């Protein structure tokens, strides 16, 4: 299966490991992965701040960059939700571009969604290098995708050596919200501290956060507050399990 990676601007700059984990795991599951280098940003910051014309220009660019991709996979759920919830409506007055947008939207998947809905992977043959306890933060974009946290938790639980504990107020926003975190930092700070406190209460070693923005926010608050858990994208965990399992087989 041929897939194209939309890595997103935040992951490109701040979390190349997450991008590489997506590439390697998708290859492990039998995909050939391609990375169109002309890609930039989905336009979400402009759209969310009331600049639809600017978002539209970036949407045109995105659709063009990925015009011949079979599937477009992104590790960042909120970018995927931006595409799915708003790209078609952005071109309400341009039938030709709208058609292209519809076609593009139908090929876009968030990473976990692609693993569970299209590849239908089973991770029970994989095991982690060491036993690890996890908790899972429900990133808000899942609502935009019409999804729940269940598929990601199911995947985690399949991994050998993974223990799962539920997060209190899991579905409560971490307070990222793009420019919101900066403009309304008092409110955002109270929100993220709540998230970190709930995470600490679980006693888990790792919190799974499948979005670049939320991960930066929760990770930054963890560091400021001296919390004991780390923040990881699920692709990083699966990649570690893939590598460990392959190594174990080889030796």
């Amino acid at each position, binding site marked *: 299966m041929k897939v194209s990676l939309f890595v997103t601007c935040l*992951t*490109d*700059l*701040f*979390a*190349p*490991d997450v*991008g*590489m984990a997506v*590439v390697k795991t998708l290859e492990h599951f039998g995909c050939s992965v391609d*990375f169109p*280098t*002309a*890609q*930039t*940003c989905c*336009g979400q*910051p*402009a759209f*969310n*701040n*009331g*600049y*639809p014309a*600017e978002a539209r*220009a*970036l949407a045109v*660019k995105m659709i063009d960059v990925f015009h011949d991709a079979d599937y477009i996979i992104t590790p960042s759920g909120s970018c995927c939700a931006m595409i799915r919830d708003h790209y078609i409506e952005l071109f309400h007055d341009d039938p030709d571009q709208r058609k292209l947008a519809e076609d593009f939207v139908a090929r876009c998947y968030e990473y976990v969604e692609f693993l569970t809905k299209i590849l239908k992977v089973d991770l029970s043959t994989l095991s982690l290098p060491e036993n690890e306890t996890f908790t899972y933060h429900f990133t*808000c974009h899942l*609502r*935009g995708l019409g999804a729940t946290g269940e598929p990601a938790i199911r995947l985690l639980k399949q991994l050998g050596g993974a223990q799962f504990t539920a997060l209190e107020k899991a*579905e*409560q*926003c971490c*307070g990222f*919200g*793009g*420019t*919101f*975190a*900066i*403009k*309304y*930092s*008092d*409110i*955002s*700070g*109270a*929100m*993220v*501290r*709540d998230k970190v406190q709930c995470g600490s209460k679980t006693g888990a070693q790792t919190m799974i956060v499948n979005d670049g923005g939320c991960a*930066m*926010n929760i*990770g*930054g*608050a963890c*560091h*400021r507050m001296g919390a004991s858990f780390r923040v990881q994208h699920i692709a990083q965990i699966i990649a570690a399990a893939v590598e460990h399992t392959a190594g174990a087989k080889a030796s």
Partner: protein
Amino acid sequence: MNSVKESSSPKRGLSLPVFHPDFMAEAHAASADAVLHAALDNSVTKKDYGRRSSLAELPDADGLRQLAGDIKRHTLDHLDYYLELLERNVIKHGGAVYFAATREEANDLIVDIARRTGSKLVVKSKSMVSEETELNDALIAAGIEPLETDLGEFILQVDNDHPTHIVMPVIHKNAAEIGHIFARYFKTPFTDNPQELAEMARVYLRNRFNQADMGISGVNFAIAETGSLVLCTNEGNGRMCTTRPRVHVALMGMEKVIPALDDLPVFLKLLARSASGQALTQYTNIITGCRRPGEHDGPEELHLVIMDNGRSKILAGEYRDTLRCIRCGACLNACPIYRKVGGRTYGSVYPGPIGALLTPLFNGLENHKHLPHASSLCGACFEACPVKINIPEFLIKLKRDEVQQGITTRSERTVFKLWAWGLQHAWSYRLGQVVQRVMLRTMGSKDGWIKKLPGPAAGWTAQRDFPIPPKHDFRYAYKQYRSGKNRAK
């Protein structure tokens, strides 16, 4: 949180009263108030879980929400027809109907009715729309005594405070605070025992119900087909207000009408579940007309005041769907921001996500420019809304209106235009990424994090650390990986 009622409406002529104009100052104080956060978690967050579990008992809650939203949309699309039908049927059952264009007009009409009927003491059942009109102030100015009889509203009236939640008005006060308020008011020894406090209010109010000349209620649903007014309450005070006094005045926003009695169960199934996780409120009153000949109770007169107060302006534009709101408060309970700032921060009658939307629509964006922005757009409100108002999408539209009306700063508009231009080309995107990486890598501490960002970004580091970008970006890592793989071949 011991707020003193400030002078209402600094700007007369606004559709909604403004209790305080400084969103940022309120947000700053409330965000640091751990007592408030614990109290809100204990109430609204719990109610939100109650909503979920009670809705999950229904065979198809989502389908029901869709249906409720569709009924509301249909009604709003034909509002003139249904309001006329409602008027005819209320009159048929012996009631009188008035239309008020503004909140001042609504208050004047009610004061007139009170004067005409010689009413001195007015008992009130909980009504958000009378908060909107500041009816109590108008009655007092006319020499008429209004008495709130919902326990929460009564506490607020005694303490000269405002509701901070649509259905749980006194959520910002704990039992001890209420104990002190009652000790002062009733001149009794202090207690913070909720049962004792409720009993004090109950005994006092029961006596006053018997003395009252007029009862004023809101309306949860007005049924056009039958001319019935539906009132959902938990305390029973609403039933006392609408049956005991000789005059009943009901005040409603014009969007509260629904077409037929058959539509009512759809909303009753959703309202209490969404508001408080109950299957139904303790009392559901369906009031059709006043006392008929031969009947031995009920008011002698029924007056229905239907208020516009800016609603027809909203109805005419692209924000029509916001008028579907049935004031259940579910979006407040679900909102992570409301849980941190409480209702007072929103500055007007309607707090929370729906307030962030309605307040600027009623009063003008220029008077409430923070409200559309102070949202992380997480979508919890849309998910909770029983009539499927897409609040986040409307907030984005309001921000777009701000840009178009020139309310946002010129520098912000320039930044977004430049940013979007830069992202249209791979080279300028890469240049931007490189510049960010180089700059950010000079700011970091030894532990790999940035403690203080410059300029507007300082808001980030005021609350949490910022990561230093790794030495190489994804593109570089990917290229290395591919060339390594090719060599391996």
